[in-house]
Structures are given as C-alpha cells and as structure tokens.
C-alpha cells in the first residue's frame, strides 16, 4: 500500500468511525468535553471575579497577583501536570484525596492552566472600557456597584472571548492531563476497536497513544473531532469579538 492509499484509507475509516458513533470514540470525546468544560466553568467562576477585584479594589499584594496572572498565562502544561502530579500522588501533600489518575485530577490541572489566561484577557477587556463610561455612570447617580455592573456589560464580549480562549486552550492541551490523568481506558473491546471506554482518555491524549500504536484511522477520527470542536469554539469567539 502506498502512502497515499494508506492515508486515504485512514480517512475513510475515520469517517466510518464517526458516522457510526463508535462508542470508544464517543466516550473519549465525552471525557474531553466534560473535563475541559468543567475546568473552564470553574476557572471562569474564579477568573472573572478576580479580574474585577484586581481592577476595582486596591488591596495589598495586588501587583503581586497581577504578576502571577501574567506569568501564569504562559505556564508550560507539562509543568502544571508535574506540579499537580506531585501534589496528588499517594505520598504527596494531597495524596489522601486519592485523586491521581482521575478526571478530577485533570480538571484541577486544566483549571490551574487556564485560570490565569481567562483572568488576563478579562483584565484587558475591563481596561479597554473607557474612563468616560465610568464617569457617566457616576454622573447619572450610579454607585460603585453600578460601575462594576456596567463595566461587565461594556466588556461582555471581551469576557466571553476570554472564557472561550480558556476553553480552547484546555481542549487542545495534552501535557498536563497526560501526566495527571494517565490516559486510561477500561479494557475490553467495544465495537471491535480500541480498548473499551475512556476513563481519563481525552481526544488529545488518545491521539498520542493511538498514533504511537499505529492505529492511524482512529487517530484521524479523533483529530477530526478535536479540530471540529476547536473550530466551533473559535468561530464562536470570533462571533463575539465582532459584536464589540
């Protein structure tokens, strides 16, 4: 088989796996969405209030937190994975939680990875709200809480963009979740392929393992799904950016 047929065959079989809703592939997609979705939700719930506090409240250590956020925006995923791993292994400080190699461990790692990103982008969205807008709130009789609310409204598309950027980063990430999740699938063949159903195996980690195993069609199928989700997230982000 030439390399072209090999690739073509892989693509054809990949589409087959997708349209027949292969359970192994579906379960992997489900874990990816669940883990990255939960991490993004929790990160947004931390990052947005944090960005507002950093913008409107003068407290000691504010600059230190901003520096931490800026540094955190570029953290290498494998470093975060290693950190969470060391915390969660049985001998580690949080070992008693018994959470290493679970979806929860992956959520924690991605939460740490993307909270600074969402915070940083939200911070710049808040900063972009012009001072005259804030003065208008005050002259119309608004209080500090109205300033915060109006800023959130004015920066709303930027805040949504920030959350989607976090989600995109989480979905695409492989280093951290590979270390703390372990890329585990239940054994037992389901639908004739793969290793059963995913426990901590995500689209990205599965692509790594399937590719090294030589199962190109499964890898391509996973890649197509990953790119489709990623594209969807980015198209949504672009849509909100244009609303501004």
């Amino acid at each position, binding site marked *: 088989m030439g390399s072209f047929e090999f690739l073509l065959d892989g693509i054809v079989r990949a589409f087959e796996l997708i349209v027949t809703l292969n359970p192994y592939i579906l379960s992997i997609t489900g874990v990816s969405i669940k883990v990255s979705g939960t991490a993004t939700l929790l990160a947004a719930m931390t990052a947005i209030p944090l960005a507002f506090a950093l913008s409107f409240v003068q407290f000691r250590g504010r600059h230190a937190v901003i520096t931490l956020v800026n540094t955190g925006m570029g953290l290498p995923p494998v470093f975060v994975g290693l950190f969470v791993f060391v915390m969660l292994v049985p001998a580690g400080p949080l070992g008693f939680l018994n959470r290493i190699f679970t979806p929860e461990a992956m959520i924690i790692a991605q939460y740490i990875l993307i909270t600074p990103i969402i915070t940083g982008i939200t911070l710049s969205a808040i900063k972009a709200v*012009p001072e*005259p*807008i804030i*003065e*208008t*709130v*005050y*002259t*119309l*009789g*608004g*209080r*500090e809480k*109205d300033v915060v609310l*109006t800023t959130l*409204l*004015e920066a709303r598309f930027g805040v949504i963009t920030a959350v989607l950027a976090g989600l995109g980063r989480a979905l695409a990430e492989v280093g951290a979740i590979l270390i703390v999740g372990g890329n585990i699938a239940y054994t037992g063949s389901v639908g004739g392929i793969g290793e059963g159903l995913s426990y901590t195996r995500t689209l990205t980690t599965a692509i790594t393992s399937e590719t090294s195993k030589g199962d190109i069609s499964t890898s391509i199928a996973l890649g197509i799904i990953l790119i489709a989700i990623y594209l969807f997230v980015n198209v949504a982000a672009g849509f909100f950016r244009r609303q*501004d």
Partner: protein
Amino acid sequence: MAELFRICNLTKTFAGKDVLKNINLRIYRGEIFALIGPSGTGKTTFLRILNLFEKPTNGIFEFDGKPVNGTPLEKNRIRQRSSLLFQTPAVFNLSVFDNVAYGLKVRGFDKSTVEKKVKEALGIVGLSGMETQKARTLSGGEAQRMAFARAIVYGPEVLLLDEPTANLDPYNVAKIEELIRHIRDKCGTTIVIATHNLPQVKRIADRVGVLLEGKLIEVNSVGGIFTSPGDARSAAFLKGEMVY
C-alpha cells in the same frame, strides 16, 4: 435667591499648571448661568469641579450651604441631585432605550415609570421610535441628543451642560435651547452651561461669567454683558476680537 454653589478663592492646578485661578462665584437656584471663554480656558474643568470629578486644589467649594469634602457617599448624594452632560458624551454599548433609562434604573424607578419617562424624553429630543437601535450606531448629533435625554430624564435639580449643542444642526439647536428654558421654567432646575455660542448665551442665559486663561474676569447679567461689559477683555471676546 438661595445660592446653590458657593465658590471662594478656588484654584485648580494640573501638574504645576494653574488651570483655574482664584475663582469667586455664586450660582443661584433656578438660574441659567452661562460660562463663556476661549478654548482651553478651563470651562470643562470648572464644570467637572461642580460635579465632583475634580477636586479643587485650593479654596472653598460649597453645595447647598454645605462644604463638600468628597467622600464617595457624599459625591453620590450630590450627583443624585445633578447631572453633567459631557462635552463628548460617552455612549453605553446598549440600546438607546437602556442608555436613557440608566439614571432611572439606578434610582430604582419601577418598570412602567421608566418606560413612560424614557419615551417622553426621547420624544422631546426627537428620537422617538429609535428605542431599540444600538446607541453606538447613532449619528453624532443623535448621540448628543440621546445623551441630553439621558441627563434630564430623571429630573435633576442641577443640570451642568458642557457645550450641549456643539454637534447639532440649527433646528436641533433651537429645540434644545427651548428645552433648557422650559426645564428651568417648569421645574426650577439650576442650569450651568459652558458654550462658545454667543447668540445662544443671549437667547437663554440669565447671567454670564467670562473665563479667560483660568480667571473669571467678569460676571454680569446677560443684558449687562452684551450692552456694557465691565471689562475691556470680555468686550473684546464678545466682539470676536480676542486673538489667541
């Protein structure tokens, strides 16, 4: 007549530059006071002091018989009773309706009152039927009129207007002027207006202050200042002979 603002020996310095110098002025309840003077002379700065956006560097500043010391709560109390229409109004990224409704919502008016008052205010400035349009898509003159409606809709006791007709065509200038007089006559609103438009001063003001390079060189009745100005420099300015 009761005085609303009492200003004694007021000075405002920005970065070592005296922008307002030793201002003495009383503004009385229910009068229309026009502040005129060349560009860069300190009119906007003065209005911003009256609405507590700038703190006087020196001097006495009293509102309604009490010295203003500028705590957030006090600022809000005074601003609840007044309204500053900025020289370049900031527009919230909301609908025309929500922009105009802002001051009413902040004051806790119920929904049906808000709707009634907003509708009325939009009618007055000739923007009826544009409630749902995005305010950012208004033309310059429409935005100016919307901002005017937003500033008067909650019936402030003090209306501070910074060149409110600079962007308007003659028809709308006449309408806004009529409205300014009407508000004062009907509600006893105190109005301070900064303007370059001398015929406008003649048409609407009761008293005039001439501000020149940060000094209030003359305060006079509108009849007095146009017929027999008390200062040679204000006479020159009124005749359009002032060269800078």
